[in-house]
């Protein structure tokens, strides 16, 4: 059997544990460090930053992280794949190149830049050419929100990462590449997997899905037997050990906390799953009903049997648009009759909002400690008399800012002019927040051309 390729997950999202990438690189042998930064609406935040400063628009904290990692990465010959480039991968790569030069690594690094996913500047042309970019959930055409669009990005697959690695890149910085493509790309490059080797591509995709949420497959947020998962303070992030035949094992560095078990890995496999027979990516379609799992020793799970199908002719597009405004206010009510007091306060608040003539798309009330997570399912079983405290949590949403702004001024008065035993308002008046909403759509693959550049250090 050929040599295994070891791909380590370092970030499951923008804001994940800063220590994880360092521990992955220094904790044992790995070949690649994979870091996923992009959630669905992250691109719009980055687009805003870029509009204020053309040198921004990427995950800024990726730069200090790389400053710490670069000497080790070079010394250990570990490569990096990441979508930290956001809407400005080129600027991100230049920033990393600058840091590398400062660290004396000139001539020792090549940075690959993957772009072509950003469609914001081409929207009118695409709409004019008859691409509706209809919302996958609601069916509405994109032109309905054309004047409120903040970002439009196609999800690229593994192919441009393979191209960048093929041209000698040590670090590949991308825009909106799929989470799974960041793992599949290195495997296609290392093993020479063809772009139509559907079973192998499906295997690499499943490997990517398993580790894309970081420690969520190695003991973090794991429900099964959770009290016996050891040493979460020192949790080991997952590592894929992959073989050319499409089999792989999930493990973690020796001496780390957490746990890699069949049951825990299964929890991650079903996370955010739709139809398990059709996990669709730009690279192919993976069938999750073919995955065979086996515990192969402590903290080591083997994957085999994975089957795939040909890719579709479309790419997923994620757009972000300005939807309106929202605000959430909270107050805490204490025993006795905590829930009754919170309910009374909610009634008072709603009456005042109505008397002011304020209109909202939605007013949502939750009683945290009682029904915020499990709704009426929890309420049924609750001994309501004994509840020691309840947080009243009221949220409003509107296309306009004004009613939301006025709502934020109606919370604090309840402290003195509403039901008694109320506290927990130290945070002050809630702030209205702009809602930037997500718009999923499909686009013909032929409309999107991925672009690969190299930045030499």
């Amino acid at each position, binding site marked *: 059997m050929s040599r295994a390729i070891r791909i380590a997950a370092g970030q499951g999202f923008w804001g994940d544990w800063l220590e994880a990438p360092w521990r992955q690189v220094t904790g044992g042998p790995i070949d690649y460090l994979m870091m996923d930064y992009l959630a*669905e*609406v992250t691109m719009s935040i980055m687009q805003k930053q870029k509009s204020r400063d053309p040198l921004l628009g990427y995950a800024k904290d990726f730069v200090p992280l790389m400053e710490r990692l670069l000497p080790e990465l070079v010394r250990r010959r570990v490569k990096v794949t990441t979508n930290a480039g956001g809407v400005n991968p080129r600027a991100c790569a230049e920033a990393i190149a600058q840091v590398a030069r400062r660290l004396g690594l000139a001539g020792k690094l090549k940075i690959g830049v993957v772009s072509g996913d950003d469609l914001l500047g081409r929207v009118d042309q695409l709409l004019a050419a008859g691409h509706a970019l209809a919302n*996958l*959930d609601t069916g509405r055409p994109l032109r309905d929100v054309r004047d409120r669009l903040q970002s439009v990005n196609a999800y690229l697959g593994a192919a441009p990462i393979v191209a960048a690695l093929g041209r000698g890149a040590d670090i590949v910085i991308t825009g909106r590449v799929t989470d799974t493509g960041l793992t599949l790309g290195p495997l296609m490059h290392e093993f020479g997997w063809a772009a139509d080797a559907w079973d192998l591509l499906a295997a690499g995709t499943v490997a990517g899905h398993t580790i894309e949420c970081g420690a969520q497959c190695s003991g973090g*947020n794991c*429900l*099964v037997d959770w009290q016996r998962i050891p040493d979460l303070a020192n949790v080991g992030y997952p590592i894929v050990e992959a073989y050319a035949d499409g089999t792989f094992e999930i493990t973690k560095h020796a001496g780390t906390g957490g746990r890699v078990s069949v*049951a825990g890995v*299964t*929890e*991650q*496999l*079903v*996370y*955010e*799953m*739709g*139809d*398990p*027979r059709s996990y669709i990516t730009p690279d192919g379609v993976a069938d*999750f*009903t*073919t*995955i*065979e*799992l086996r515990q192969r020793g402590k903290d080591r799970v083997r994957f085999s*049997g994975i089957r795939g199908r040909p890719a579709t002719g479309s790419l997923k597009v994620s757009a972000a648009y300005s*939807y309106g405004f*929202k605000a*959430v206010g909270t107050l805490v009510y204490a025993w006795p009759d905590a829930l009754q007091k919170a309910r009374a306060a909610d009634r008072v608040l709603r009456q005042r909002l109505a008397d002011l003539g304020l209109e909202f798309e*939605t007013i*949502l009330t*939750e009683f*945290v400690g009682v029904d*915020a*997570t*499990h*709704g*009426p*399912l*929890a309420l049924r079983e609750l001994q309501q008399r004994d509840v020691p405290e309840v947080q009243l*949590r009221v*949220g*409003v*949403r509107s296309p306009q800012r004004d009613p939301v702004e006025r709502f934020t001024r109606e919370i604090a008065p309840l402290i003195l002019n509403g039901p008694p035993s109320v506290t927990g308002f130290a945070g002050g008046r809630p702030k209205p927040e702009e*809602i*930037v*909403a*997500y718009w*999923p759509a499909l686009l013909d693959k032929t409309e999107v051309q991925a672009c690969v550049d190299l930045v030499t250090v």
Partner: protein
Amino acid sequence: MRRSRHRVKSGRRKRTVRLVDLAHARSGDKGDTANVGLIARHAADYPVLVRHVTAARVARHFKGMIAGPVERFELPNLRALNFLLHGALDGGGTISLKTDAQGKVFSTALLRMEIEVDR
């Protein structure tokens, strides 16, 4: 009432179990849809889940909490069922006003369900 009728009909004793004792789960979101993956703790319990935890039964369980239909998919290889709960998240993502805007704890909400199994 229902329990005794079962007994007469099948001639076998039944007992009530909570899903939390048979299964574990993880949930997440896709827009306004929450997904719950329900995983049998022991292989022998997977057919029990397939038989009793139907899409219709799950829709009844979440009555008042979700606005849309429930879909179910089977993964016998992982002894898991995947449920899609449509219209569960007040619009989902950044639109939602819910504490659990991303459906992270629909998992344990499903584990509250009780089913009647052969003793």
